[in-house]
């Protein structure tokens, strides 16, 4: 009995102090609160029918974005804890162990469970509407992608209170993360959760690649695609070719840890560098996976709010293709100091600098789009305009880091930390916020409040610069990343304090955003036209939110900025009057994706704790659900013409 209690106390980390108890308490309260609320308002059936089983890209996109905002909160809390720990010399606010776990989960969550679902959320929200089709190519697979991401995120977050979080950094370099140095389930959480979400992401890449290649409305040639859709197309290609590399890197490391093989160990002929190469062959394309869609969002927002067509459309496309190709040949710049030799380092230094050229082309194109435009500074546009200088700082410091001899000075210092936060926050997060303000009315039929939006932007943007700009100097002064605490007398203390103040300000900005969401849901201006920004692409041609089938009749496209052209010539989105509707083929909802992801979750638990029975049950469950799907022949229905007529009449499109 005593043994069981001891095991449970250790397993649930009750011996780890108040931080864990507080988390347990909050998780318990949130879970009970959600269950009680759903039961009290009798919402279980609504939740199941409308959300958990949906295959509708618009709803899946919304769920991705909700998850991304929740994960931004979790990752942001991690960031604030780290900043609190570093705010002054010799602090022991966190223990060293906890600090290591928190910087690891911060990085992992922000990249894989915040940035990825945010951009994939926008893929779902915007792409099918922008190309004039009714859903993605594989709606059922799309639901599987989402639920795999969801169960992986759940698994990863569970590590905080069950068994311990990973502590090897988001890059998880061996040999430190091998069992010999880092026993326990922590690293397994990292490996298994990323593996599961990675499978979902590959499926998303395949899905959107085929959607954009094959599902475009008639007349929507590739060179008429909205720029966001172009960015998704390129990103999908990168996903399809980069994510399998991550799959392999994670799998090999997991085999090392679970089954005692010798891929990356220091004994038995292992080769730790092989992991580092594989990781970054995925890892560098990955940063373009999260930035290219942000570029796409920016192109949409800048063009819409300058009320001009995008400047240099073909140059934008060519530069994205160039970035995609170059992204696969720069990975060694993440470890110039690991002794690859001058020839190799020079090649990768030059290829890295070359990326600045297409990126510069894009920045100039946005500027020229605004030039002589009728620029309207809405919240979305503020984020887009804020993106340009902030991302520029990130990009230019990136070129500094790409110079191998100089990199020996900056490598793994706070200079690097500041650099990638300028690209990932100043780039991806600003882009995502621009997208949220821009597409919010299309998703929910409500506009976010502009005044609160401005407060959100300025607080967050100023806080961000106060937080990260000083870190460039900390890097020059010798402060290394992942440092738990530091002695007084280096002159780092006051700069770190300033940085922490900035981080708190970013937190305030986030809270203003949450307040804006809540306030606007209740009092926000309703979007009755479906086109609140005088938009240019097809998603603004339909109601907000769009009907289940998106378009009653698939529109015929006559040029770029399709909806803008239709408005100019006074055409209806449903084409000439009197064309009869036809019943619309729609995929059925299915509960299987969420059940399948539950089995992935169970199998994941098995691999994390090496409980093989659980792993076998989980994998068998996955196989059985796949087989069931194979035998499912009645997986679609038709929306009758009367219902389409009713919906279209209500939208005033008859």
């Amino acid at each position, binding site marked *: 009995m005593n043994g069981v209690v001891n095991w449970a106390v250790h397993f649930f980390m009750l011996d780890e102090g108040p931080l864990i108890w507080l988390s347990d308490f909050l998780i318990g309260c949130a879970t009970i609160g959600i269950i009680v609320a759903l039961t009290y308002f009798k919402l279980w059936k609504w939740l199941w029918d409308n959300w958990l089983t949906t295959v509708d890209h618009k709803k899946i996109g919304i769920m991705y974005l909700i998850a991304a905002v929740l994960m931004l909160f979790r990752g942001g809390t991690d960031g604030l804890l780290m900043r609190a720990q570093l705010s002054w010399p010799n602090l022991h606010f966190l223990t060293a162990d906890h600090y290591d776990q928190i910087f690891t989960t911060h990085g992992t969550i922000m990249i894989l469970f915040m940035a990825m679902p945010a951009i994939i959320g926008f893929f779902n929200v915007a792409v099918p509407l922008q190309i004039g089709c*009714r859903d993605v190519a594989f709606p059922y697979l799309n639901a599987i992608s989402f639920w795999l991401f969801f169960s992986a995120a759940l698994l990863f977050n569970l590590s905080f209170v069950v068994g311990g979080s990973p502590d090897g950094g988001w890059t998880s370099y061996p040999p430190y993360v091998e069992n010999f140095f880092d026993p326990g389930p922590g690293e397994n959480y990292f490996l298994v959760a990323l593996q599961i979400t990675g499978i979902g992401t590959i499926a998303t890449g395949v899905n959107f690649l085929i959607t954009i290649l094959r599902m*475009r409305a*008639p007349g929507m040639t590739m060179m008429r695609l909205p720029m966001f859709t172009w960015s998704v197309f390129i990103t999908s290609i990168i996903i399809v070719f980069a994510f*399998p590399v991550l799959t392999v890197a994670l799998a090999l490391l997991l085999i090392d840890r679970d089954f005692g093989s010798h*891929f990356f160990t220091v004994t*038995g002929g292992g*080769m730790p560098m092989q992991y580092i190469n594989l990781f970054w062959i995925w890892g560098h394309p990955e940063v373009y996976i999260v930035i290219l869609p942000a570029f796409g969002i920016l192109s949409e927002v800048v063009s819409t709010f300058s009320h001009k067509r995008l400047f240099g459309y073909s140059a934008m496309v060519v530069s994205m293709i160039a970035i995609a190709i170059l992204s696969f040949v720069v990975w060694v710049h993440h470890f110039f100091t690991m002794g690859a030799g001058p020839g190799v380092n020079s090649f990768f230094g030059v290829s890295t600098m070359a990326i600045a050229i297409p990126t510069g082309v894009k920045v100039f194109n946005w500027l020229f789009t605004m030039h002589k435009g009728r620029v309207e500074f809405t919240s979305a546009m503020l984020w887009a305009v804020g993106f340009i200088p902030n991302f520029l700082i990130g990009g230019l410091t990136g070129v500094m880091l790409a110079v191998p001899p100089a990199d020996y000075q900056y490598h793994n210092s706070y200079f690097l930390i500041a650099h990638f936060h300028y690209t990932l926050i100043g780039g991806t997060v600003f882009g995502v916020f621009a997208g949220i303000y821009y597409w919010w009315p299309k998703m929910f039929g409500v506009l976010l409040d502009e005044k609160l939006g401005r407060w959100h932007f300025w607080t967050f943007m100023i806080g961000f610069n106060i937080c990260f700009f000083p870190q460039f100097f900390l890097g020059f002064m010798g402060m290394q990343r992942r440092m738990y605490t530091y002695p007084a007398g280096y002159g780092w203390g006051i700069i770190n304090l300033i940085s922490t103040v900035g981080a708190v300000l970013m937190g305030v900005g986030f809270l203003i955003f949450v307040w804006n969401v809540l306030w606007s849901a209740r009092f926000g201006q309703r979007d009755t036209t479906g086109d609140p920004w005088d938009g240019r692409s097809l998603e603004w041609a339909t109601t907000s939110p769009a009907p289940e089938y998106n378009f009653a009749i698939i529109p*015929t496209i006559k040029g770029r900025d399709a909806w803008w052209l239709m408005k100019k010539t006074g055409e209806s989105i449903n084409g000439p009057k009197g064309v009869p509707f036809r019943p619309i083929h729609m995929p059925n909802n299915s509960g299987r994706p969420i059940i399948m992801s539950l089995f992935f979750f169970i199998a994941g638990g098995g691999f994390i704790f090496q409980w093989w029975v659980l792993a076998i049950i989980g994998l068998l469950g996955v196989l059985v659900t796949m087989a069931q799907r194979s035998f499912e022949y009645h997986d679609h229905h038709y929306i009758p013409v009367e219902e389409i007529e009713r919906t279209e009449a209500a939208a005033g499109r008859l």
Partner: protein
Amino acid sequence: MSNAHTAVHGDHHPVDPSIPVEYHEEENSLRIAGFWVFLGSDLVLFSCLFATYVVMHGRVAGGPTSQQLFDVTGFTIETIALLFSSFTCGLATYEMRRGNRNAMVTWLFITVALGLVFLGFEIDEFVHNVSIGATMQRSGFLSAFFTLVGTHGCHVTMGTLWMLSVIIQLIRYGITPITARKAFIVSIYWHFLDAVWIFIFTVVYLTGKVV
């Protein structure tokens, strides 16, 4: 509203005898295209395993080398079985296009059987290796060997299970555009595994026997 470049879920191609049966509905054509893209990503997966294997090949840590370990008879039989199974799988597609359900099912059964022969010899090889102490825990080389060849073996196992499920559906529903599409996709998967095996045969077994 559909033209050659546009797919709308639920649209039917006019049944044109020159178009193979598996492409008869837009939905099917989409899925076949999607599966080709998936195979592209699977190819990247195998490339990484190959790269790792090549890096690890000499890192035997005092354990058995590839020259000592590989058995020519075994991997030759495996290769012949798998190559023949690809041929019989192609014959099944041929019969599918001619509308001969029974011949098609027979060829698919033969394909599965050859796949099982392949798997049997592979399992036998693995068991033998383990029995002489050449486990994946022994050295970096053996870790990479078991993982690369084992991943291919897992793919083949999945392929046989999948093909059996397609056979059941063919028996139950006959050759329809849907079952034809399913059979076509599992067959390109099978050919893909055969192509990967040719690389394993060359890079792992032939090279490993010489170097």
